[in-house]
């Protein structure tokens, strides 16, 4: 049974149509990556799913209940959202994560709220930092705090807007590894936007490609082909296999233009390449 069902989302800013009939379903415990070029409506789509933007038409169901008819607290118990950038404040790591318990707190934070917060902070390997102020920790740690806040919310669906933005390669993988660990053990359905397709392939079960506000493709890893990438991003790539995992390699890069072309297992024909610069 699908945990998240998005049905025919349409969203416009004035006359500009951003989302045009977005529909997909995601199963419990699955990680879905939303991929597509800049400005194609990925973030808008996530915000529509969270009811931060109200779409002109379409519905979103979490575990069978209509998200748009839920009150603020109930919605927050169903969907946790981590935006792309979060303003800095002078709060400790622990306090900042504890805020995620807001939907459950009636008057003041109880023992259970504190215990759950401590548990998530610990699971993300940040126990030693819990009493530091946010402006005293690194960018990677800051990003983990944002994710931790959504995790203590204990939502059924977790929405991450570019969770690995601004992180170095090591932090990208440790962060994603921890997210994967926790969401899988807790059965949270996760939807995240990603720029790095290869990183997405490592950690996702399903892939949704957005192009000009509509779904260009949705499916498991087999959906990712050179043709699809060219259609969505307007750039030619080779899909090679590296240790049994597909790996996307752009066909040209100016630095190696004059080098003899490399022959990859999937790239048996050397085409005369045309530049499609749509980005």
């Amino acid at each position, binding site marked *: 049974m699908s945990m998240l069902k998005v049905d025919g989302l349409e969203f416009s800013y004035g006359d500009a149509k951003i989302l045009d009939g977005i529909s997909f379903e995601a199963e419990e415990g699955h990680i879905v990556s939303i991929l597509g070029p800049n400005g194609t409506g990925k973030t808008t789509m996530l*915000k529509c799913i*969270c009811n*931060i933007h109200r779409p002109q038409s379409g519905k979103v169901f979490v575990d069978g209940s209509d998200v748009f008819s839920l*009150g*603020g*607290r*109930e*919605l*927050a118990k169903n*969907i*946790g*959202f*981590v*935006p792309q*950038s*979060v*303003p*800095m*404040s*002078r*709060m*400790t790591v*622990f*306090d*900042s994560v504890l*805020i*995620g318990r*807001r*939907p459950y*707190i009636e008057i*003041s934070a109880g023992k259970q709220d*504190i*215990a*759950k*917060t*401590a*548990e*998530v*902070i*610990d*699971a993300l*390997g940040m*126990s030693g930092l*819990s*009493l530091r*102020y946010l*402006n005293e920790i690194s960018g990677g740690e800051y990003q983990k705090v*944002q994710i931790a*806040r*959504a995790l203590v*919310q*204990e939502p059924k669906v977790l929405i991450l807007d570019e969770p690995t933005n601004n992180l170095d390669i090591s932090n990208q993988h440790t962060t994603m590894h921890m997210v994967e*660990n*926790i969401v899988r*053990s*807790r059965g949270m359905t996760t939807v995240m936007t990603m720029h790095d397709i290869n990183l997405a392939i490592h950690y996702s079960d399903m892939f949704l490609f957005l192009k000009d506000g509509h779904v260009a493709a949705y499916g498991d890893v087999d959906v990712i082909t050179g043709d699809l990438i060219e259609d969505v991003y307007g750039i030619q790539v080779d899909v090679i296999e590296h240790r049994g995992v597909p790996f996307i390699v752009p066909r040209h890069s100016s630095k190696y233009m004059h080098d003899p072309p490399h022959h990859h297992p999937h790239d048996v024909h050397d085409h005369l390449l045309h530049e499609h610069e749509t980005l």
Partner: protein
Amino acid sequence: MHGPVDIPDHSEETAEGYIRFSRRKNLFLVGLAVILVALSLVTIRLGATDLSLGDIIHYIFRPDSSWESTVVWDLRLKNIVAALLAGAGLGIAGAVMQGILRNPLASPYTLGISNASAFGAAVAIMFLGGGLISGTTTLNLSVDNPALVTAVAFIFAMIATGIILLLVKVTACTPETMVLAGMAINAIFAAGLSFLQYIADDTSLPAIVFWQFGALDKASWSNLYIILAALALVCVYFYYKRWDYNSMEAGEDVARGLGVDIKSTRVLGLVFSAVITAIVVSFMGIIGFIGLIAPHIVKRLIGDDFRYLLTGSMLVGALVLLLSNIVGSYAFGMSVPVGIITSFIGGPVFIYILIRGYRRRSTV
């Protein structure tokens, strides 16, 4: 609910560490309260009439018609209570405004609410017959019809808040537009006030000028009861909303995702902050910058957490105002209204925050 199995569990230690840390913050607030009580005791002994602490305590609990009793109750104790209430009210209003507008420069004074009430008072003095001055020396000066002047000042403070809210509604609800709107309102009412002063006659002018200087002794006991009642009501609301304010510290999207109704939280927070400011300013005149300084001092010391920030801002607001009052009363050989002192302290602090704010923004 269970955590991943491959990581050793330190979460109990983390939770205990946090509880100890929270206790320290509470202790800090208790410490502030103790300092405040001590400072109040020091203040109550200051004055021309020589009274021992024993005498003072005697008159507090057994007031009579003697001069000493009047000094204790109607001069010293009243001023201290006025400082505590006005400081607490302006402090908490500033903390909430800075939080809901996500702007470190927001305060009752910078949003133009104080100037709007001063303008209202001037209108009442000049055109509505509140302006006859009783008393012949400047020390003894008082406005003839304080109830009317106060009421009109309060109405104008609420008008300023209404204009800010209306502008914000027209231009969508961003913190920047709110603060800019406040600055514009500040400028308009300041100009209006200057104009009224320019055209005022000999009797109105001193009354207008006198009214503007924020001074603690202007408020009567019945005024103070009104401030206390308003402060209590507003505090209940602010404390109830403290988790929403904390959520907004993480930005609008996070707060919305946590189920906070941003618009109503912002509008109601601003209205309640304006109410408490208007009441204080109406009874005591313009006491600038307390609402700006107090939350900043607390944030520097114990952070942005509204569970502690609200109480801390009230305590520090009261402390700063009480100290300013001592400085104003005794440092210059004559009694200088406390509003002048707070502006002297507040101006440089404002510039400091401005510079620091920009530096921080450029490094993140």
